[in-house]
């Protein structure tokens, strides 16, 4: 057994990493639905879920149970094979795309192995292309679900979704070309490291500023690719009942749901990596005091969770919430008390996750504020605005890079 472990250490580490990441992503997914409902509710001056557990924190659990125990009817006349394949395809591809994201630069030393954050190998030189390849296949989940349901509304949803994907994928890929030119690599780690060339500039060294056009195009196209408001025409509930997943119930519906939220996370990670410096701190490298920011945020938050938990008379409020708050606060204290290298290590994942959270908030914010596009507006917007702007961005970036090479002052 020991020998087997020793020879296949890499394999074992990867499997453990996959299991861990799956667990984290699915949990984050569940709480993303809670987050979305809460934020949209507050935008609309409501309370959102607040009955199941304190602040409705157990709502995702209740929803999950409901998905499991609901009846799962298969409509008459469906194409059985494709009908069952579609949700599997959607979920599997959405979860695969997360595997390519790197979450931190430095490895953890554990049992004599360097364990990097992120599943893909360090030298995955087609990083961004691999991600695009997976999202390109992702559309089949939606399109085939719509087709196989043998029903009018899902078919319309599936049609809309495939047309939308073809239109916005062009703009999506063109808009990152500028970033790739600046980094000179497809590797996601290289793209982040290229933004660290000027550590004294902090936030102003990120790709966001020279690539502001690219970022706007990318984020818009990416929202369209994930079928989210204001581009959620494939499931427009006011016209198409529920669009492509009208005929799906129970856990098959949940699979589409999880796939959608997972691709939201992937897109947020990708925005962070391509334009917002990935795991880089927004402060100049010389501001070492900002390294205590994780503690400054974690300790008060943990203390507030403890305090808040005691206001409830249920077991969850009295025990689980204070326990959670204690763990959070203790983590904050530990980062100050423990040797410096722990605090150094936590910086990268801390900033990465913070930025991803900001993007997830923007997603929800848009859902709470923006109305849906009309179909012809959607097409005109994609082809007549996003695509030309992203092509102009590519040309501008190439000219600037060429000029710098010619009369280089760098």
């Amino acid at each position, binding site marked *: 057994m020991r020998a087997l472990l020793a020879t296949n250490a890499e394999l074992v580490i990867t499997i453990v990493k996959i299991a861990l990441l799956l667990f984290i992503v699915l949990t984050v997914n569940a709480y993303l639905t809670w987050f979305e409902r809460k934020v949209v509710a507050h935008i609309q001056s409501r309370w959102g879920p607040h009955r199941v557990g304190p602040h409705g924190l157990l709502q995702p659990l209740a929803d999950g149970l409901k998905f499991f125990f609901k009846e799962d009817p298969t409509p008459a006349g469906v194409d059985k094979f*494709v009908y069952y394949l579609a949700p599997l395809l959607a979920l599997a591809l959405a979860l695969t795309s997360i595997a390519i994201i790197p979450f931190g630069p430095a490895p953890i030393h554990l049992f004599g192995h360097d364990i990097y954050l992120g599943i893909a190998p360090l030298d995955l030189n087609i990083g961004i292309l691999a991600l695009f*390849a997976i999202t390109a296949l992702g559309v089949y989940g939606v399109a085939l679900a719509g087709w196989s349901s043998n029903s009018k509304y899902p078919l319309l949803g599936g049609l809309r979704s495939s047309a939308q994907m073809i239109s916005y994928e062009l703009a999506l890929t063109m808009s990152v070309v500028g970033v790739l030119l600046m980094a000179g690599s497809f590797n996601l780690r290289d793209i982040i490291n290229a933004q660290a060339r000027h550590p004294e500039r902090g936030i102003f060294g990120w790709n966001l500023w020279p690539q502001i056009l690219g970022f706007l195009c990318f984020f818009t196209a990416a929202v369209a690719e994930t079928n989210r408001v204001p581009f959620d025409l494939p499931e427009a509930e006011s016209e198409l009942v529920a669009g492509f997943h009208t005929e799906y119930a129970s856990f098959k519906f949940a699979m589409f749901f999880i796939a959608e939220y997972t691709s939201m996370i992937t897109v947020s990670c990708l925005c962070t990596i391509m334009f917002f410096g990935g795991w880089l701190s927004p402060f100049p490298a010389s501001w070492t005091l900002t390294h205590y920011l994780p503690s400054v945020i974690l300790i008060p938050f943990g203390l507030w969770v403890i305090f808040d938990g005691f206001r409830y008379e249920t077991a969850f409020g009295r025990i689980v919430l204070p326990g959670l708050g204690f763990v959070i606060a203790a983590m904050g204290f530990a980062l100050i008390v423990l040797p410096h290298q722990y605090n150094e290590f936590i910086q990268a994942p801390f900033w990465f996750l913070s930025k991803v959270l900001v993007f997830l908030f923007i997603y929800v914010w848009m859902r709470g504020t923006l109305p849906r596009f009309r179909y012809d507006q959607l097409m005109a917007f994609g082809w007549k605005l996003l695509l030309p702007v992203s092509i102009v961005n590519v040309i501008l970036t190439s000219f600037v890079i060429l000029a710098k090479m010619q009369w280089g002052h760098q």
Partner: protein
Amino acid sequence: MTAPLIVFFVLAALAVIGAISLILQKHPIHSALSLIVVMVALAGLYLLMGAEFVAAVQIIVYGGAIMVLFVFVIMLLNAGVEEHTSLSKMAGPPGLLLVLALAAFVAATIAKSGASVQTAAQTGALSSTRGISEMVFKDFVYPFELTSFLILVAILGAVVLAQREKS
């Protein structure tokens, strides 16, 4: 048997089965799905040979864009189940001849370039993105630009055909 060889046989079997199923399926969507399987299996084979870029582009362009368009058109036209017809007498013998000729050609090519096929995987330089872009934009820039021009003409033709007639 080494791991890459096993992966090769699995992918190759997938590609062949997909191709056969593409012909035998009765419903156009099932045929399109089989074709997607072939495309993805081919991408896997490219990856196995160390051609990362080609593999990714294979999936993005063929597996993604083009096949989505196929599926879209089939869904839009709502094409139904088709019936297998008995083979026409004209198609039989010439088809068989063509199959034999193609098989002979492939076999001859493999036999002739046995050495180069085995070393192709190890060079690696050509398969990198930089190598490919230097080939496309330096060595083969004229064929490349001519192809783009051809595609542009096709796009213009499509636009002209799709235009509403002026009243």
